[in-house]
């Protein structure tokens, strides 16, 4: 990463008359858009930049130098599973034959692509311990919403009106937000002193809301990185009340090789392929959020569905012939919840996830959870002196501290996070979960070496020391980044969200 700000906007590099493309000129010009009535045409041309190719190349190359990615250094952003994004997966996703496929072309011309799609569905079902998966959702929150729709469709099919969803207070913000989008009312379940679901509170809420409970959403290990040890009791309680159990797969990485959501009694879940299955986060997408269901709920999944079928033909010459292959089933069955996207999801992302699964194979995937967990527990043990560990005991793939152990100089979690940037690290997730005031959530993933982790731990200790000896310096960090701390209030008070607005205001 370049620690000097590059700073230009592409519009500022534009000069009338320049161009960065070349198109064939020998086409039939019998018809032009001038034929369209003036009332259908725009009055003024869009003010897009005019740039030559090299200017554009340098601009986006220089801009990238002001960005930090997993390839630049350690990225312990809790809950986001910033693991290594294997380059071979990019090569495979970039194969021309896949890139040129139209989603509506006949299935017989794209059996290879459909095979990948289908086999990924089956692989995820095996890894999750569930019956079937849809790959249509484009991200984790999209998966949550789709999963909740499955649950509502299930209750609707039984003419059972249920409007509430139980969500622990430690849950990701997307959980309650997805519930609200899905027309459900959130009932918050308290955490106990151990940071896990308070079963007494759950019991009370179930007694109170009983027949109104559509589902309970759970992350396990939860957002504190702690496994919910009484998960079987919880699923039993909710099932008894007639609700379904939803598993937020954001933290699935911890469990690969050790246990499966389906075996814990969950009925519906989503997986973030961009977390557990190594596909790049891309600065915030494209992701992929497949949704899996237990046996009996398959019919509620959204359409279209990719299926394996056997078709019998009776050809005049060859007689009865059997064709086994894959199809996209666009059929809109009565029971399906509907559709959640243009076509059938982010296929380009699925290719990378499937390449990852094939690369690791059954013999390596099973170590993912163990190594991720080892790394997190190692960090926990080595940092718990200088940083306040609010909940003792085992963690899984991530660990949450409640800021510095010694807060006497007023150095906050925000300051620690910003100081880490100076040392060449991405910050952990901060101020989440909301259970603590100074949450600092560290997720190392299985890909990080002992050396990387040791160096990070050393820096964390050093920052704790700096907080005592030179608190002002930490409070004003970062000092060594392309920009310093930004004025968030100014940004929100007088929002400038386009170049044109920026020009007016300058």
């Amino acid at each position, binding site marked *: 990463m370049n620690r000097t700000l590059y700073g230009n906007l592409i*519009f500022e590099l534009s000069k009338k008359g320049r161009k960065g493309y070349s198109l064939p000129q020998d086409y039939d010009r019998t018809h032009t858009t001038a034929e369209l009535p003036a009332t259908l045409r725009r009055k003024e041309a869009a003010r897009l930049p005019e740039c030559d190719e090299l200017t554009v190349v340098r601009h986006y190359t220089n801009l990238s130098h002001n960005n930090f990615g997993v390839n630049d250094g350690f990225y312990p952003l809790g809950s986001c599973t910033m693991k290594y994004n294997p380059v071979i997966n990019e090569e495979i996703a970039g194969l021309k034959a896949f890139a040129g496929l139209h989603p509506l072309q006949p299935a017989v011309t794209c059996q290879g692509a459909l095979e990948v799609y289908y086999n990924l569905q089956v692989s995820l079902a095996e890894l999750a311990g569930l019956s079937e998966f849809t790959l249509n959702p484009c991200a984790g*929150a999209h998966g949550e919403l789709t999963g909740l729709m499955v649950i509502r469709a299930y209750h609707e099919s039984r003419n059972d009106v249920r409007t509430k969803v139980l969500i622990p207070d430690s849950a990701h913000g997307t959980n309650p937000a997805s519930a609200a989008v899905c027309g459900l009312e959130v009932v918050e379940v308290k955490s106990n002193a151990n940071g896990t679901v308070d079963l007494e509170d759950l019991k009370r809420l179930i007694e109170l809301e009983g027949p109104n409970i559509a589902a309970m959403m759970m992350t396990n290990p939860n957002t504190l990185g702690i496994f919910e040890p009484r998960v079987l009791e919880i699923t039993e309680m909710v099932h008894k009340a007639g609700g379904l159990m939803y598993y937020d797969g954001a933290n699935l990485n911890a469990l690969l090789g050790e246990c499966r959501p389906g075996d814990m009694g969950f009925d519906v879940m989503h997986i973030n392929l961009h977390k557990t299955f190594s596909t790049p986060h891309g600065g915030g997408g494209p992701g992929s959020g497949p949704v899996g269901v237990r046996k009996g709920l398959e019919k509620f999944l959204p359409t279209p569905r990719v299926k394996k079928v056997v078709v019998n033909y009776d050809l005049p010459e060859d007689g009865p012939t059997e064709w086994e292959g894959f199809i996209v089933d666009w059929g809109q069955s009565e029971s399906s919840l509907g559709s959640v996207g243009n076509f059938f999801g982010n296929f380009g992302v699925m290719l990378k996830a499937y390449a990852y699964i094939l690369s690791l194979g059954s013999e390596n995937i099973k170590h993912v959870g163990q190594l991720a967990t*080892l790394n997190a527990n190692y960090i926990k043990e080595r940092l718990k002196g200088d940083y306040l560990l609010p909940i003792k005991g085992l963690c899984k793939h991530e660990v949450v501290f409640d800021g510095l152990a010694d807060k006497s100089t007023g150095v906050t979690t925000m300051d620690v996070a910003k100081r880490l940037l100076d040392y060449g690290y991405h910050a952990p997730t901060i101020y989440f979960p909301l259970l603590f005031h100074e949450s600092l959530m560290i997720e190392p993933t299985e890909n990080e070496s002992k050396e990387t982790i040791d160096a990070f731990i050393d820096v964390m200790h050093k920052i704790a020391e700096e907080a005592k000896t030179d608190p002002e310096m930490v409070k004003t960090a970062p000092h060594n980044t392309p920009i310093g701390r930004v004025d968030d209030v100014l940004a929100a008070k007088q929002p400038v969200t386009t170049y044109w607005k920026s020009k007016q205001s300058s």
Partner: protein
Amino acid sequence: MYKYFPHTEEDLQEMLKAAGAKSVHDFFDDVPEATRFKREYELPEALSETDLRLFFEQLTAPANTQPLICFAGAGCYDHYAPSIVQNLIQRSEYLTSYTPYQAEISQGTLHYIFEYQSMIAELTGMDIANASMYDGATATAEAAMMAWGNAKKANCVLMSETVDPKVRRVVETYAHFHGFPIKLVPAEGGVLDRKALDKALAEGGVAGLIVQQPNYFGIVEDYTGISDAVHEQKGIFIVNANPSDLAILKTPAEWGADVAVGEGQSLGIPMTFGGPGVGYMACTEKLMRKLPGRIVGQTLDNRGQRAFVLTLQAREQHIRRQKATSNICSNQSLMALYVTIYLSLMGKEGLREVAEMSYAGAHSLRDKLIATGKFKDTFPGQPFFNEFCVDYEGDLDALLDECTASGYLAGVKVGEKTLMLAVTEQRSTEEIDELVEIIQQFKEEEAKA
């Protein structure tokens, strides 16, 4: 050990010791025995990189995966993009980063999102755009929810029957679960039936109206006066527009839209079997605080430098939880970068040229198909852009099979006799002529025999 696992035996022992454990299994002592996974996963064994390549080479052999010469559209278009776009978005600083929460080390991402928002605002004519949505369909559904949430007294959101049925189904799905009815306004002759619309508006309680431009059948509809009529009912006007065509076509803002949405795949993104593309969403300043998703804004840093940052976050799920404007978290950021670089290269003139070529190609193909005598216009006299419908007199499935066998995807069947074809600047005059020739030569009886 495995290539993505750096732990040597020595590392393992040292780390286990420091963590107070004897084996990695100890970390799972709190997992109830009954839920422990004790067998091997039923998955293939690990493939070496060489074997992995071989595996995918076989899957992409022409017999297994065969891209066709594409005259299909229906929401996914085969446009050209300069080679450098794909190359630049693969830069690991973009590819391997996440949502730019730490502005100090994310100016690259924040800059391009700001540029993207500016370009979308400029193409649509709207005041403000967000950092992207999953796709055009979910962006439209979010717009419907925005209309519903914005309305004081309403009992429905209206949607034109000329909106892509795939998009309609997504909007209807979201609306059903969110808890509001979608009323479909019927079409007449391939365009929104104005009388039916007037009637639906007169019934009152309308939170908004969703239309598409060009509509599903490729027709460029005249939406004059509709915005006023919807506003009179205190509803908002939502236009789903193909952004590529907005180089020429009247902008959603010029139609009086409050919200503009659509699928950005047409801005040079490879079709990739339908995804990833990118949904775009833009609105008036008035609705700014109701917009879902990430928004990047300009500000200053403590050194006085211009800087960019995620802003207006009080709308979002990680702050507002169930009271957020939407549940969206990850969007399609890297595809927004794709669009930004594409538009930087194509620029003002390039996008117009693409539009002219696509328009010219589609109209030329339509003339040639009519001239074969085998087709009639499905919607005679309706203006279209680069996609149109024709009715075939014979067995359409047999004809399409014949085209597929010759390597052509001759469009999308949208009715028993109706074929919808799209042409982009990628389709040469030779390809257009060859497709017409295949169709001209096709004799059903022979195919059947």
